[in-house]
């Protein structure tokens, strides 16, 4: 299967090869055995062919039957060794290569989990997916076949050339010239087809994107009766792809017949000149016969070698992309302070607890050993925080804000005002460039990231559901949660009544991101997921945007009980969602421009007032 035989050149062959070899290096014994077996297998082929000459010249022509039997027996053993080793190296190679590929895949996935969000923002899902699929596949194919074929064809090529030289060095000159010609041809053709393969890849990408967009927008297509126009557009892209790939395949398709034909010309010349040599007494018929067999054989390993080198280069280019991703910096996490479930005794002392008590404390290492406990209260403060997603463009310019423990704090403002950014920073999804954020008086950089995040439940607007049952999706918030806990959380989120009506209730299987659930229902599930995690701090980023106001009120009541005396951050577009917050912060251009409760802000007659009276639209 000529998978993009174009020469996709890796930038740093040596480095990538070394990295790949490090993976292979974990299987030293297997590799050693493979190399040995490949050598034996290749050698048995060469020696076998070499012995053909001896059989014809020394035994058949003189009519030495016992010698012939002897010789065939020896050859049988040699061939048997060849078959056996061929079987063995193939078997070991597949095992090793699949093991290596699964290790690479696993390392890549593990690494992906530790990458900062910044990385996901700057790379499309399609791009990251293709590392896992296309790139890993290419490596797999190459390791499965190319590695052994490369060694084998190399040994066979060298062996054949040596044999030819031994048999007749004069005649070998012809072969060597032709081999050089073939190499030149393959290189030139590879370069030419590369151009067309690049065009093909580009067109394939365009058609992929178009199909994806159209499948996703199917409803709109139908509503506007746009099928015909879309089909026309598709046909246009399809035709471009067809033209490009036809050209690319024409070029690669020419390689094999051309090489074959060249090798026949080579064969013809060798036979012709060899015949003349034989007449001149420079060589005997047996030698000539086996020489010609070698000549016919010489083209195949050469061709094979070039093709495999091409495959290997493509695989290395893929490996390079994978290793580059693995070299991306992890999220920074130097924090040492952890979060503990604690019990508060009557006398005010704090002790760690194994069960959920509703009380949490920060466990701060003190000196060489021992800890002090700082109760978790949910006091979040921003001190002159500066931040931008890119270096050129800062979003927050020295923002100062505070959230008092146990309060419900709301952020209001236009798209781009920095609401979501603030939330992202509390969670340390991104690193601030200046200033400081404290959590119960502790710099959040001192807190271990996992524990920081465990202390905050985040609900975002776009609900992502996983393949699995409804119950599984809610349980994602707390893996040990019992079935009763799940029902309780669902009731709290007002999701219970709709779940009950699903075909299999809580055991209904959700597929393709819960496509059949309405936007609002998905959000209810996300709220249930957050509720079950029993969070000390809750953050809701447009978490109820698709839920009707009445249901929202019901949820609010439930959440208020759950989050009593705990800090809740709310971002909402809808002012009814934020109205009863203790403090409403109106943001604009990365600055807090108004702060107060609903009544206070209305009397200020500022931006909030204009929003509330419908004079202004939030973008």
């Amino acid at each position, binding site marked *: 299967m000529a998978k993009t035989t174009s020469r996709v050149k890796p930038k740093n062959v040596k480095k990538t090869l070394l990295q790949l070899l490090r993976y292979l290096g974990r299987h030293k014994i297997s590799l050693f055995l493979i190399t040995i077996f490949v050598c034996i297998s290749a050698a048995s082929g060469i020696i076998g062919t070499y012995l053909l000459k001896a059989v014809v010249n020394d035994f058949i022509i003189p009519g030495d039957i016992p010698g012939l039997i002897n010789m065939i027996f020896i050859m049988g053993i040699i061939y048997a060794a060849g078959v056996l080793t061929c079987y063995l190296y193939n078997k070991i190679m597949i095992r090793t290569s699949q093991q290596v590929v699964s290790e690479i895949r696993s390392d890549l996935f593990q690494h992906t989990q530790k990458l900062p969000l910044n990385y996901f923002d700057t790379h499309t899902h399609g791009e990251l997916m293709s590392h896992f699929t296309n790139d890993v596949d290419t490596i797999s194919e190459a390791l499965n076949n190319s590695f052994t074929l490369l060694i084998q064809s190399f040994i066979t090529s060298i062996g054949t050339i040596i044999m030819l030289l031994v048999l007749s060095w004069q005649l070998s000159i012809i072969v060597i010239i032709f081999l050089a010609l073939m190499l030149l041809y393959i290189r030139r053709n590879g370069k030419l087809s590369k151009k067309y393969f690049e065009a093909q890849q580009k067109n394939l990408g365009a058609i992929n994107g178009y199909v994806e967009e159209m499948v996703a927008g199917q409803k709109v297509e139908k509503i506007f009766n746009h099928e015909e126009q879309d089909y026309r557009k598709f046909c246009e892209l399809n035709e471009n792809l067809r033209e490009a790939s036809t050209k690319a395949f024409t070029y690669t398709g020419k390689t094999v017949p051309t090489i074959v034909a060249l090798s026949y010309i080579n064969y013809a010349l060798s036979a012709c000149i060899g015949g003349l040599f034989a007449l001149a007494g420079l060589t005997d018929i047996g030698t000539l016969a086996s020489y010609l067999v070698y000549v016919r054989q010489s083209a195949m390993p050469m061709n094979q070698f070039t093709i495999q080198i091409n495959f290997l280069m493509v695989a290395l280019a893929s490996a390079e992309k994978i290793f580059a991703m693995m070299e991306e910096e992890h999220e920074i996490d130097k924090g040492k302070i952890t979060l503990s479930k604690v019990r508060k005794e009557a006398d005010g002392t704090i002790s760690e607890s194994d069960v959920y008590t509703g009380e949490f404390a920060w466990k701060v290492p003190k000196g060489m050993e021992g800890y002090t406990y700082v109760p978790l209260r949910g006091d979040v403060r921003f001190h002159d925080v500066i931040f931008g997603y890119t270096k050129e463009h800062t979003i927050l310019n020295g923002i100062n804000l505070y959230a008092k423990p146990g309060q419900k704090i709301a952020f209001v403002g236009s798209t781009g005002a920095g609401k979501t950014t603030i939330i992202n920073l509390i969670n340390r999804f991104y690193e601030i460039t200046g200033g400081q954020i404290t959590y119960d008086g502790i710099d959040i950089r001192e807190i271990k990231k996992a524990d920081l995040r465990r202390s905050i439940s*985040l609900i975002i607007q776009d609900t992502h559901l996983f393949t699995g049952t409804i119950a599984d999706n809610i349980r994602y918030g707390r893996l040990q949660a019992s079935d009763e806990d799940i029902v309780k959380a669902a009731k709290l989120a007002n999701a219970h009544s709709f779940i009950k009506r699903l075909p299999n209730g809580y055991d209904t299987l959700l597929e393709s991101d819960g496509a059949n659930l309405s936007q609002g229902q998905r959000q209810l599930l996300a709220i249930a997921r957050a509720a079950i995690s029993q969070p000390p701090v809750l953050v809701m980023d447009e978490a109820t945007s698709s839920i009707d106001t009445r249901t929202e009120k019901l949820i609010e009541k439930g959440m208020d009980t759950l989050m009593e005396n705990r800090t809740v951050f709310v971002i909402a577009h809808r002012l009814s969602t934020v109205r009863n917050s203790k403090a409403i912060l109106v943001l604009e251009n990365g600055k807090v421009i108004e702060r107060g409760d609903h009544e206070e802000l209305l009397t200020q007659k500022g931006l909030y007032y204009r929003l509330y009276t419908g004079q*202004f639209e939030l973008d």
Partner: protein
Amino acid sequence: MKKFLAYVKDYKKEMILAIICIEAETAFELIIPMIMADIIDVGIANEDRSFILLKGLQMVVCAVISLFLGNLCARFTAICGNGIGASIRAAEFQKMQTYSFSNTDKFSTPSLVTRLTSDVTTIQNSITNGIRPGFRSPVMLLVAIYLSFKINGALAVVFLIASPILGIVLFFIVKNVRPLYTKMQGAVDYVNRIIQENLAAIRVVKAYVREDYEITKFEEVNQNLKNNSEKAFSLAVLNMPAFQFVMYGTILSILWFGGNLVIIGNMKVGSLTSFLSYVLQVLNSLMMFSNVFLLFTRSLTSWKRITEVLEEEPTITDDLAKEIEIKSGSISFEHVFFKYKETAQEYVLSDISFDIKPGQTIGIIGPTGSAKSTLVQLIPRLYEATSGNISIDGHPIYEFTQKHLRDSIAMVLQKNTLFSGTVRENLLWGKEDATMEEIERACRIACVDEFIDRLDNGYDTELGQGGVNVSGGQKQRLCIARAILKAPKVLILDDSTSAVDTATEAKIKEGLAKELPGMTKIIVAQRITSIMDADQILILDDGKINAVGTHKTLLKDNEIYQDIYYSQQQGGNL
């Protein structure tokens, strides 16, 4: 398979030419070793220099002709393979467009995309790479067997033993490897799904500190894939040693029997060597053929996935359509029930009945999950009612063609989709040949004119995929303008002004009432202010109609409506 041949038909000419070239090329290649035998047996034996040179020249000419034919064949094969691939892709796309959503849901979006792209590529590659060896090797095989019989019939019996052995082994491999490949493909799907979901939900994963959980999940499917692919590939590579085994065995037998024949004097040395080379050719052909077979085995899995797409029957058809047109735009629902899946126990919508007169405005309101969106999507037949009757102008909606029905109804969805392209291109979805005046008028009604000048290039501003360059409120207004351009009899707005401020929303409603008075309007909303002046308001609860009335009557009698009203009164603007 019959279906597949239908696609081949369009490229019959190229296919035939390709095959002719292959066979001719093969013939010339076969002649070459025969000429070679002459050099040794006749030329050298008779010490005839000019004969040797002549034969050499003949060989070169043959090689050059086969080079030419081989290159031609590469061209025809590429045209054929890629052409067939393109036809299959186009057929799939066209078929996909006839799908209803229950059809689409069956496959899921990522799977449909794969079936239209990489599965077709697999087939295309196997045609392009498989034709040559596929048509070459059987001829090679037959000719070589024939010629070797001609050289020495007794010796050629070796083939009759070797070929079946090899055939049986290859058959065994191919037969067993097929289910293994299918299994492997399934394992690949699992792995991809886990990665895809993980990437999409990376914020959720990080927020809940579930990295380790995700890794465990991944390890499981990863191991599964490793085991499955190891099994499949291990079996497939048996091909190589099996081939070698038979080839070597044959060589040895021929040396033994052939050697004896030469010694007795029944055979020439040259014949033995050319016989040997035919043997290699036969076995090589078998090997190549088996490779093609393995290649096809893999693409069969893809072809199966493609036929599933092609053979899927669209659940919504025009079978009962007549030549009638929608004139006034009155709508009635009679005892309509609906569920997404046949197997679901509960209906999503139950016993829905109501009537809308032409030109009326209807508001639909109700709690989350009360199936408001589902209800309005039944009108343009995006989904088909499970039972009951929906009619427009007194005719059941299935009596209109889908094209006419959807031309007459404009709908703005809750989840708006704008496509990559300029603002103008997106608006023209509503009416392909709309004039600038028509566009401007629609934009005026939808209050798009308020911000269009502020975009970088006005109507020619490029929108990214999904319309990422405009804000939520702007997107909704663009979608409304796009719908108005259709000049529909019925306009359905499904929660499509939620991000627009109330002042602008009022302006849009006013514009609609003034400029398009005859149009029936159905407005699904969460805000009372969006629907309070509608002619009729429908309250949906739990997929049933809770009440029908006007703002006044509902506010007086209906508990749900009162609840919604007061929950928003306190909040004022939403």
